[in-house]
């Protein structure tokens, strides 16, 4: 449908206002909410994500596309319940204790939302216990940890241990990332998955829930 293709392309171009208007128009034309979400907003975000992963676009373009997605979401969200649209799952995300870098974490959040997840953002400098508590409180299936400093990477291990200590380690999948983090490190601390970029992170999250 043309209007859905337009929503997707305007979103990719970061035109927040136009996306917002088009989503409203689509609703007015009785286009199903699920289609607007999946073939419009999520489609656009998915394409931006793939381009970002391939280095065709960079952080600024993703940020403005995400802003456009959020504007569209604001219009669409009130109709989710009545049309039976549900989130793919709940994720909580935060930058680990001692670390205040949040741009990478925010991108991961946006890409996860772009795959239809509901994301609880715990912010930066998040103590291990706060992850455990939030995961239990919100019923999160996936916990995402971000660290940009080699000196705060050990705090990721502490989060894994905190889940073990609380006896809830088997209820969540723990994902780790951030520039200095590697697959090897992920295995070392007993986390479940690592991804090098935000788009791959969202794909991995889907895979984790599927399998």
């Amino acid at each position: 449908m043309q209007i859905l293709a337009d929503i997707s392309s305007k979103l990719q171009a970061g035109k927040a206002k136009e996306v917002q208007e088009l989503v409203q128009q689509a609703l007015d034309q009785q286009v199903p909410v699920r289609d607007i979400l999946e073939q419009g907003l999520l489609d656009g975000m998915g394409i931006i994500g793939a381009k970002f992963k391939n280095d065709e676009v960079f952080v600024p373009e993703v940020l403005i596309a995400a802003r456009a997605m959020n504007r569209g979401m604001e219009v669409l969200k009130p109709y989710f319940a009545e049309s039976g649209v549900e989130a793919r799952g709940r994720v909580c995300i935060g930058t680990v204790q001692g670390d205040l870098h949040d741009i990478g974490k925010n991108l991961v959040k946006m890409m996860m939302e772009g795959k239809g997840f509901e994301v609880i953002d715990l912010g930066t400098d998040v103590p291990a216990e706060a992850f455990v508590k939030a995961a239990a409180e919100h019923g999160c299936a996936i916990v995402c940890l971000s660290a940009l400093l080699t000196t705060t990477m050990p705090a990721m291990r502490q989060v894994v241990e905190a889940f073990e200590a609380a006896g809830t380690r088997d209820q969540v999948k723990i994902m780790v990332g951030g520039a200095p983090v590697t697959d090897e490190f992920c295995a070392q601390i007993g986390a479940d998955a690592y991804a090098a970029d935000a788009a791959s992170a969202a794909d991995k999250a889907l895979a984790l829930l599927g399998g």
Partner: protein
Amino acid sequence: MPELRVHQAGAVRVLPFEGQPLLTQLLRQAGYEISTPCGSAGVCGRCGLRVAGQLDPPAREGRALACRTRLMGDAQVWLADPHQLDKIALADSLPLTDLKPLPGEFGLAVDIGTTTLAAMLVDLPSGRPLAAVGLTNPQASLSDNVIGRISAALEGEGPRLRALVREALTGLTRQLCEQAGIERPLHLPTVIAGNTAMLYLYMGYSPRALSAAPFEADHLFGVWVEEHTFLPRCPGAFLGADLNLALLASGLCEREETALLADIGTNGEIALWHRGRLHCAAAAAGPAFEGGGITQGLGSERGAIDSVQAVDGQLRITTIGDAPARGICGSGLVDAAATLLDLTLMDETGRLSQDKVALAPGVMLWQKDIRQLQLAKGAIAAAIGALCQTAGVRTRDIHRFYLAGGFGSYLRPQSAARIGLIPEELLEKTVALGNAALSGAAMLLLNQDCLDASTRLARQAQVLTLSGNPQFSQLFAERMMFEPF
């Protein structure tokens, strides 16, 4: 026992080893410096070496990443020529208004840079510089970046780091005295500049406070330590005594006019002087300006492409030492980006028209290298913007723009403005200061009033925290674009 044969400067050294050590481990134990800016994550490629023999993973096209490659049996490695003592250009005079030297005959000014140690011997009564030398900071054998050294200190290497820098300083002092033709004086007043972490490590203090949020230093110095060594005060945890002394040497805070000073490097330090107030911010840029994280990045070494220009639509490069191009250093990278923009081989979002560009035979610039440059230059440009906003200063109100530090001297301001690293409006107002921290340290030796002045300067500095600062984040996203601002 299996052996590693190390070829360097025409000589071969044999290192027997046990087990299956990483190349970096064995080489560093033997005292070689191997640079691993990405923290041995195997991503930056800086530790790539020419190798042969039994290695895991096996060499690819005769090369391997030292940080990721284990020795499985006899092998060989070829290293670049060792760093030599650099002759440092000696200023004829120092920026001094009054001569009020510390008591004594000679004085020693030192700058402990993360990469380079620089020292100068001055004749105290006359204020004349006698000799100056530089040397690679030997702490680089443990890690070449500040955070890596902080981690090493926290893992028990503090005493070794302290000893390494002190031994090197003893050596430099001997060298300086020889050059000046004097006996090493018993009494040698010394001023040591450096970033906050370097001063911690010099003293052997635990740098735990510098390793995680809230990054509040528990020592800021501004004190005499030992018999006659003064460590100038640091404005903050990532705003060092070197910044303080560069400010002092520039004389910027003695004038009425609004001025900006930037030390662009892995850790960018920016200061803005406006209406009698000093605002400072530390902007982590990452190692791109030193060639780190760039596929074929190099420090300022022979064979590094250090300038790129377009002549008749063609790329024209120069290299350090006019040697065949082997890679690219920071100033070359900034130039390359500006030139690619001019030739429309890259757009303002940083997208290359092909996935890589050949700068010289065998030297490529990749899309991902451009992305690293965008992060680095975005952080510096955003910090400048955030400081100006905080102080309520418009760029055009800035009278002078000082570039401190080594990189600032090599950088071509036109290219820097073209890619949006420094404000375009300040192009004509740019002054390169070189190693101003060292001249600043000498000033403290030669004018006792400067000792207090430096402490006052650091104390009055208002540090703008960029972490969690929404203005900074907004500007950072905008200024990652290659657009003049």
